[in-house]
């Protein structure tokens, strides 16, 4: 029996908004990885002493490093927001026999993020 198989376009992901978002989120993992590398470089520079730290700071102040980091931050934010949005779908939490509403699960995630960020900020800035 001859059947017709629709070929997959190279630009198939432009077909729907959700596909575009999905591809962007997949792409965001590259930038998450970049931030990890950046952080490791920073730690490495610090452990090598003040001069090396200064060199790292100068290097990261260049326009193109800043540009990469800004783009990376946008992607990481996209990653976080979509990831948190997913959380209530995966977590069916019950409190006293009732399923916790999705919005509360999402809110709890943002709250935890805020608290963790505050702790880190306190550790760094104190």
């Amino acid at each position, binding site marked *: *029996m*001859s*059947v*017709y*198989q*629709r070929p*997959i376009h190279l630009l*198939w*992901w432009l*077909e*729907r908004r*959700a*596909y575009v978002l*999905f591809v962007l989120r*997949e792409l965001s993992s590259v930038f998450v990885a970049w931030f990890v590398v950046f952080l490791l470089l920073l730690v490495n520079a610090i452990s090598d002493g003040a001069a090396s730290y200064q060199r790292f700071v100068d290097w990261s102040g260049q326009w193109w490093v800043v540009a990469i980091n800004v783009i990376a931050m946008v992607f990481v934010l996209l990653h976080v927001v979509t990831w948190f949005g*997913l959380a209530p*779908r*995966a*977590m*069916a939490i019950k409190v006293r*026999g009732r399923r916790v509403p999705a919005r509360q699960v999402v809110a709890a995630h943002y709250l935890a993020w805020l608290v963790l960020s505050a702790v880190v900020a306190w550790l760094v800035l104190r």
Partner: protein
Amino acid sequence: MATETTLEITLEVARYRPGVDTEPTLQSYQVPLREHWAILDGLTYVKDHLDGTLSFRWSCRMGICGSCGMTVNGEPQLSCATFLTDYAPGPIRVEPLRNFPVVRDLVVDIDDFMTKLPKVTPWLVREVQSPVEDGEYLQTPEELDEYQQYSMCINCMLCYSACPVYSLEPDFLGPAAIALAQRYNLDSRDEGADERRDVLSSPEGIWACTFVGECSAVCPKGVDPAGAIQRYKLTAATESIKELLMPRSRSRR
């Protein structure tokens, strides 16, 4: 006397004749634009009055049987539950469901799903069947609530049609099959979660899903297969951690 004018709308229907055509072509038909007519009524009109060779599937005409799924203006829809007036003034493009081989015109071959479905053991599994005299397996409304949503699936394949992972990785078990596995996993009367686990946790199972979420967006029955998959990911991850810590206890779900 005023002449009676019937409003019409154009259906651009994908035609594919196996063995004759190499790919589908669009053919236009004018059908009456009636308020209560669904796309399916338009197609039936074509078949009855304009072109008897047009092939499409349907049965219940009321969103229950799941056989009338088509791509309407690019979106997977039940053609019996999608109304002509919502697309006025048209034209309306009607194509077969994406991601399935087209057998003819709007008819697709869903054998792939039919072979995958039994792999998730979509029925109640009991370790020991109690005799009929013992009566029914009772269930509270809360226990029913756990899985009822997933039991609403009508196998319409709209979710497979919307899933880019399925189109890129045809071995993917797919949204409905996983949601149906969860329908039994979460049923208090079922004891088959272990049996389903290997299939569900395989690379072709839940882990192939990258959470595009379109399956849930297009599902006409509110099944939320994407949610079912994410939930099972969490269950599977918890299970493997437990197994790592306590190798011999394989718990129920």
